[in-house]
Every structure is written in C-alpha cells, then in structure tokens.
C-alpha cells in the first residue's frame, strides 16, 4: 500500500507542485512522465513509447494498410506480414525476454495495437490474441513448455488460438462441457469449441476443458498441437468483419495429449483464461481505438476537401460538432484504455474492473466514432473503396468478443456492489 501512496504523491506533485518533485523519492517506472493524453496518440508517452508507436504506425502504413481491403475481400490470413511484424518484437510483446518475448508492459502493447490496427484491425486483433496466448504460456506454463513454445510464438513461426467459448457456453463460460479425462500419463479430450480465431490455420490451441468438478474450479488449460489425432475443425465461418483471420469451430474427439500439456495447475484453467482476457480486453479496445483514430483523421481530410452548397463540409457547424464529439470520445477512450493498461501492469486492486470498463466504454465509443465518420462520408462511406466501412465492420465484433459488453457490465456491477 505504501509504495502506491508515494507514487500518487509524485503524480500529484508533478501536476500541481512541479517544483517539489525533486525532493520526493525517485521511483522507477512510468510515473515521472507527464501523463496528458490527447488526440495526438503519442501525447503523454515516454520517449521509447513514442518510438514504439511510430515504428508500429510506420509498419501499419507501409505493410498493412495498402493490403487491408484485399485481405478483407479475399479473406487472406496474412501470415508472412505477421511474421514480419513479429521480427520487430510484436509477437510476444509482454512475455518475458529469457525465451524470446519482448518483455514490455501492457501499456506498450496497447499503444502497439492502437498503431497497428490503423493498418488493419482484423489482422492486429489476431496478433493481439496470439500475444495473449503467448503470455498465458509464458506466465503459467512450466519452464520446459515456455522454452519449447515462447521462441516459436514470439517469432510467429507458430500461431496460437485461444479456445474458451463453446456452442453451449458463451457468456456463461464457467459451464463449459469439453472434457479431459485422465488415462495413464495422458489426457483424452472430447467436446467442441466455437468461434475460434485462427482456428484451422493456427498451430497451437489453448483449450479450456473440464478435468474436475462442475463450475469454474474444475477447468484446466490444455495445450493441443495441430495435427494431434482427434483434433479437427468446422467450416470457415462467414463474418461481417474480421475477414483477414479465419474463424472455425475446434472439434476434439478422443484427442489424446500428454498430461504435461496442462498450462499451470490442474483446475487453474478458468483463472488463467480470465487473466488472459484482462489483457485481451485492453488489446481489443486498443484495436477499436486505432480504427477510431484513423477514421477521425480520414474524416477531417474528407470534410476539408468535399464541398456541398458551395463550401467545404468542414464549414458546416453540424459537421464541426460531430468532429468535436468524435475527438472527445476518442480521448476519453484512450485515457480509459491506458489507465487500465497501467492498472493491469501494476496489479492495481481494481484492475479487473478497470479493464472491463475500458473495454465496455472504448469499444462502444469508438464504434460510434467510426459510425459517425461513415455518415460524414455520405454515400462514399458505404462504398468498399473507402476504408471507413471496413473499420466499422471490423470493430463491430469488439462489442461482442473477449467477454460481451453485457458481461463487462456484470463484472463492473459485481465489483461495485460487493464493495459497498
């Protein structure tokens, strides 16, 4: 508790009494930077974070944005582009460095995804899920599993999928029914997983399955490799957006894996899955944020170029007010996301609630921003020649996955009502 208070003191002193900050004890970490978040995404970041953002944005503009419409239209999973992204350190951003992770913070990951998603939301969202899986193995996996998988995942030579949802267990994930029965030194898995991002095209599946009693405490997290007999996939789903990554059901029929493939302890699976999702929620919200940032910029350009009734659209007060609201929502979203990322990094007592709030608020606010951006484009906004519609289609699902926004409200309300 004490370090927390001291840190707060430093923050306050920076803002109000800048001159006294030198007499306070120096604490390593991010608290010495100035914390103002603004429409400029790099505002309030440290010098290194600015570089990270810039590198990710350059990558997004040069390697992804020119292809994002094609990846969407032809449903191309851009594996080579993702490997290239991984070569810069984007494959396992917040996994430890000893086996090839990049060893950065949740905030660093958030600003990376915010930048990358401007080039393609769908591809970035998959990269973020892959990062979440790498972190789960890195944090909870035994040393031998980390040593085997982290290098391959960090380089994205091998791709990972997160498998929690089932046809009969969505928001009520704790009731999942995929089973893993012990047989000698092995586990035999049976059941099916629905809506699996990357499913069929990825190499490593982290399957939440029941190894014990009913309810969350009987669930374990088991790593299953593609190619294991008994592992198969459903048809590729047709989706509104997120078309640059395949979504399939994952089917397990007497699928036998060594018991040593359990990540963490037996019965710890649900907890691991939820911990992964805390970061996943920040990551997904960051992808919405990138789409909103790009849409705001595109709209500002459009309003200044497009003329109707003899003047640029930007000269109409209605449009000015729309832009003002979009920008305000954007900054509010960014503040919530970055605040939650910092909370998660530091295991703040309220980090679960803050991550849920950031996901709830930012995915909705950013969807509204992009929807308004589309409206400001008029008929052009509805054409696939213009990027806004793709941002809109791609971020719509962010209100549904990684825990629906309704589940976010359950989590938040539970926390608030418990503490009163």
């Amino acid at each position, binding site marked *: 508790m004490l370090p927390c208070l001291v840190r707060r003191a430093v923050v306050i002193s920076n803002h109000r009494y800048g001159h006294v900050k030198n007499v306070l004890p120096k604490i390593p970490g991010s608290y010495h930077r100035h914390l103002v978040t603004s429409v*400029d995404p790099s505002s309030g970041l440290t*010098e*290194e974070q*600015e*570089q*990270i953002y*810039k*590198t990710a944005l*350059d*990558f997004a*503009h040069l390697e992804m944005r020119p292809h994002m419409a094609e990846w969407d239209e032809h449903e191309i999973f851009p594996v080579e582009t993702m490997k290239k992204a991984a*070569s*810069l*350190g*984007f494959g396992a*951003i917040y996994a430890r*460095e000893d086996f090839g992770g*990049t*060893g*950065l913070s949740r905030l*660093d990951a958030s600003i*990376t995804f915010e930048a990358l998603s401007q080039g393609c939301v769908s591809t970035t969202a998959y990269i973020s899920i892959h990062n979440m899986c790498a972190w789960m193995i890195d944090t909870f996996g035994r040393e031998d599993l980390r040593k085997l998988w982290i290098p391959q995942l960090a380089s994205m030579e091998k791709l990972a999928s997160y498998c929690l949802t089932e046809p009969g267990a969505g928001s009520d994930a704790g009731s999942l029914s995929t089973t893993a029965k012990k047989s000698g030194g092995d586990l035999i898995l049976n059941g099916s997983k629905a809506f699996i991002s990357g499913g069929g095209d990825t190499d490593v599946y982290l399957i939440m399955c029941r190894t014990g009693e009913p309810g969350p405490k009987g669930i374990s997290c088991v790593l299953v490799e593609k190619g294991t007999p008994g592992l198969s996939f459903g048809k590729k789903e047709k989706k509104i957006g997120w078309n640059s990554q395949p979504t399939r059901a994952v089917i397990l029929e007497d699928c036998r894996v060594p018991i040593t493939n359990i990540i963490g302890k037996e019965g710890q699976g649900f907890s691991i899955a939820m911990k992964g999702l805390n970061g996943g929620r920040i990551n997904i919200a960051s992808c919405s944020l990138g789409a909103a940032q790009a849409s705001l910029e595109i709209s500002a350009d459009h309003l200044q170029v497009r003329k109707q009734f003899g003047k640029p659209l930007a000269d109409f007060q209605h449009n000015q007010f729309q832009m003002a609201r979009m920008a305000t929502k954007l900054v509010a979203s960014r503040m919530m996301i970055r605040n939650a990322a910092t909370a998660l990094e530091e295991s703040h007592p309220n980090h679960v609630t803050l991550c849920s709030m950031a996901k709830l608020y930012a995915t909705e606010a950013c969807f509204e921003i992009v929807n308004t951006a589309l409206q400001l484009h008029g008929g052009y906004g509805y054409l696939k020649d213009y990027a806004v519609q793709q941002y809109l289609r791609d971020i719509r699902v962010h209100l549904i996955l990684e825990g629906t926004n309704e589940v976010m409200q359950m989590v938040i309300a539970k926390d608030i009502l418990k503490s009163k």
Partner: protein
Amino acid sequence: MSLRILVGVKRVIDYAVKIRVKPDKSGVITEGVKHSMNPFDEIAIEEAVRMKEKKIAKEIVAFSCGPAQCQETLRTALAMGADRGIHVEVAGPQYETLQPLHISKMLAKLAKDEQIDIIIVGKQAIDDDCNQTAQMTAALLDWPQATSASKIEAKDGSLQVVREIDGGLETIKVKLPTVVSADLRLNEPRYATLPNIMKAKKKPIKKLTPKDLGVDVSPRIQIVTVEEPPVRLAGAKVENVDMVVEKLKALGHA
C-alpha cells in the same frame, strides 16, 4: 577494416504530412506537425549499419543539428543501430536560417574530432531539397566525394560507389576518408525493433553547441516570403492536335 562512420540525420516534417504555409508567409507551419527522420538519412543510417554488420565498420556516430526534438531523431538512428549520437542544439531564428554550409562545417569539425573515415548523409533533405551538404563537407575537408550513391562496396582503403546520374549509372572509386550521399535505391531501411528501441535508450547522446565546434550560425540570409505553389487551373478539352497547337500559340507557349 574497422572504420568509423559519421551519419547526418535531419529532423524534417514527415513525408506524409500536407505542408501548410504560415499566414504571414514567413515559413511553413511546424508546430503540432508530425516530424520524422529525413527518408534519405534513414537510408544513410541503414547503409552504415549494414557496413557494421559486415564488420567493415566498427562504430557509427549519428549527428543531428536543430532543436531539442532532434534527440528523437537521434534515438531512431540509435534504435536502427547507430552506436552513439551527437546533438548540436540550435533553436529559434537561428534554426530557421540554418544553411547546408553550417551543417557541413559542423560535420567537417566532427569528422576531425571523432577520427571519422566515412561520412554518409542523405543526398538531400525533403524539406529544403538543397542537396549541398555532402558536397560542401567534402570540399571543406578536402576529401573525395561520392554523391547519389545507389551501391557501396568497400575495397581495401577505398569505396567503390555506383552513382545514379542523369544518363544512367556511374561507378567510381574513392579513397578513404570520404563523403558519401545516399540516393533512394541504395537500400531499404529496416524498422527499428522493439528490443532495439529499448536498448537505444541506454546509448549516449552528446550535446554540443555550434560554438563548441567553432561554427558561427548567425543568420546570413533573410527569408523574404514563403508561398504556396500556384493552384492548378482548370483545363479544357480539344478535338485534335491542330487545336492543341493553336491553343498553345494563343497562350504564348509556342
């Protein structure tokens, strides 16, 4: 070989930004505008890093001159693989009237102080398009120059450089020490990786003033006016070649 390379990196308005002229026509708007490393200088850094990777060079010193934000540009160079940075701080009106000759003098002095074997700069900066710094630096040092390089090969005590010239490609050999300017097709610069961005933080940046290098940067020129390029006028369709000629004659072009 174990050469020391000095690379000049300039902070310029990002190539993707739409340039706007200040209302009083004294210059272009730079406040709140995204800046990046001059793209030709990125190519220069990349080439130096490749020479270090091939063990031709042992140390890369990145140099930038301008306001405090130039340190960001230097950090980018360090993240790409330069070993240390030198920032010569010039701000305000002096910065606005800074000329290639000033930079050349600084580079020349640093080349002596730091025992540099090769200076690499971008062939020009995308803001003022001067294309003068390499040439003047070589003159001040009385070193050979290889400008607009599209290929560089180190050969015992000299560099073989392919230059892009109007008529095609020219291959020349220059003795070390030398000054090289990088053209667009010399290489494709790498992205800084996240681990290297973090490592760059620990690399040193030395801060100097023009005075430390004995360079007088007091303005020699005065900016009279900066204007937008003329707006393109609407065209007209013509039926055939004769009408084109007729129109051109009428407009006084032929």
